[in-house]
């Protein structure tokens, strides 16, 4: 066989790296990845009806989700799927290898190359937004001002010194340092600028403080000053969850206070006296100070006739910064972009407000370094497709002209 002169010439055998490159840059892999993204989006759309939007997005598209099993109407679908983040990452690799490195070069293929760059930019924008964007909301009443947004989900613990009735030096312990303190795990948080540290344990994502006179603890919950934290099942609307944990003051001499409860569902902070100084320890959704103040001058809402379906919300605001003022209108699909922040018109209240009732407006505030990248990527893709079209059209015209010359 080896010396058979009639045998077709053999293609040179590819190395393992070469074969791997072929697979990773192949059109087949791109097709599979796009199908997976379609499946993930479809299952996530169905699952968020029962499980809520935020938990579903985390399950399907968070980087920590490598594999998942979809659930539809509370029943598990026995179809393991890769996490959407990683499908997107492999698609990015595939496009880079196949659509940029492996693709045939030359001016005839310039349009394709440009379009692939556009799609790559869009995938990168998704990754940047996933890792680096922040979101919060700000509710402002007509005639009132606000200079802070509140995170939708993240509960933090804040320790502040109270001077002349007002909080100063507000130390913030972020949720990412707290939400792993479950199942008996605790952590000491050192506060070098304060005369004590804080020990925190028993974190619950959704809990309510309950008096033992009202309902006896069902299991071995810790009791602090006659209260314990009763764990509750997560809300479908994850923004409504109220976190809770147990804390102790650890003084510089090593002694500890009695444990106390910190809860998102509390009306007042816990107070600590140290010599003649007073401190508060509180749990709240993370506040995000803005670099300027927003004053809501007027809010108007218009509805489709005979319905409560909004056709238009308009907030007329004054942006106040360093003594200067700027009048800005924010409405649906027309956000305010300023200093890297985007203010979207999100909702309003109170629900069912009647004529003459004082309204408040709610803005969603997003800080996303890749805010405009998807838009730029669409321009790039459109330009690439236009170049491809013009190249093909030019080639067609040239060939037609040549044929006509031969006739």
């Amino acid at each position, binding site marked *: 066989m080896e010396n058979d002169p009639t045998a077709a010439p053999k293609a040179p055998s590819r190395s393992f790296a070469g074969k791997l490159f072929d697979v990773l840059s192949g059109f087949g892999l791109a097709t599979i990845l796009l199908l997976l993204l379609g499946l993930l989006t479809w299952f996530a759309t169905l699952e968020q009806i029962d499980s809520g939007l935020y938990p579903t997005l985390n399950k399907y598209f968070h980087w920590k989700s490598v594999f998942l099993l979809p659930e539809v109407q509370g029943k598990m679908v026995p179809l393991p799927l890769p996490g959407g983040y990683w499908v997107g990452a492999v698609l990015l690799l595939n496009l880079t290898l196949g659509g940029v490195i492996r693709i045939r070069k030359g001016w005839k293929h310039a349009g394709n190359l440009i379009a692939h760059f556009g799609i790559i930019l869009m995938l990168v924008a998704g990754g940047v937004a996933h890792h680096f964007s922040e979101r919060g909301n700000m509710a402002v009443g007509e005639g009132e*001002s*606000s*200079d*802070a947004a*509140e995170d939708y989900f993240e509960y933090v613990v*804040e*320790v502040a010194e*109270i001077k002349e*009735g*007002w*909080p*100063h*030096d*507000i*130390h*913030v*312990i*972020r949720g990412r*340092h707290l939400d792993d303190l479950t199942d008996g795990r605790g*952590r*000491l*948080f*050192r*506060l*070098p*600028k304060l005369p004590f540290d804080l020990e925190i344990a028993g974190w619950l994502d959704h809990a309510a*403080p309950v*008096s033992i*006179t*009202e*309902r006896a603890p*069902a299991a071995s919950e810790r009791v*602090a*000053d*006659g*209260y314990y934290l*009763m*764990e*509750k*099942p997560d809300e479908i609307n994850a923004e409504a969850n109220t976190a809770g944990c147990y804390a102790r003051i650890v003084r510089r001499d090593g002694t500890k206070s009695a444990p106390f*409860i910190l*809860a998102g*569902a*509390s*009306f*007042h*902070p*816990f*107070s600590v*006296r140290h010599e003649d100084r*007073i401190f*508060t320890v*509180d749990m709240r959704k993370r*506040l995000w*100070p803005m670099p300027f*103040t927003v004053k809501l001058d007027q809010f108007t809402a218009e509805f489709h006739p005979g319905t409560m379906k909004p056709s238009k919300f308009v907030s007329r605001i004054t942006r106040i910064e360093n003594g200067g003022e700027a009048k800005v209108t924010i409405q649906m699909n027309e956000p305010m972009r300023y200093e890297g922040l985007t203010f979207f018109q999100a909702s309003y209240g109170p629900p069912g407000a009647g004529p003459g009732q004082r309204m408040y407006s709610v803005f969603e505030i997003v800080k996303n370094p890749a805010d405009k990248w998807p838009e730029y990527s669409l321009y790039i893709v459109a330009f690439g497709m236009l170049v491809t079209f013009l190249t093909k059209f030019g080639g067609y015209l040239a060939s037609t002209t040549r044929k006509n010359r031969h006739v």
Partner: protein
Amino acid sequence: MEIVEIRAATRRDKTPKLFATSDERFRDAKPSPVKGATPDGWLALPATQMRLLNYRFGESGMGEVWVSISSGTVPDNVNRWLKQFGAPPLDPAALAKLRTVPIAGANGVWVEAAGEYASGMGAAPKPGYGLAGVVADVGGRILTVKMVGPKAEVEAARPVLEAYAGGLKMAE
């Protein structure tokens, strides 16, 4: 772990109530929009966010009665209560047959159930429990009076509960 993140005070910060007790920190101190006279033998407890009026009753100390303003409709609340006892939901015809009783100047439906009580609040199911209560639409608000506890104690306390519900008054 050392905490170095410090944020500036904002307009959202306010003068805190210092040295609040746990009751003040965790209970809503707003006055209840519903007033009621505590029956003999019931123990009045502080209100909570969900319980405008809150009581314990019965020899076991396990019986609870509370008054709430609820969301949803009268059928929604009746069927939610029944579901907590594993009972099937009532259709409109069955709901129309429920006995009505006076409550806060209106009429409400009287609901009863018995069996294993699963409150759905993370607590373990409790077998041998009973339910009695009233659900009413009072001026567009859904007012509920709910009694749960050991079945025999609930059955014995039904007349007291009915009289209590009839004596409730809206504060306005």
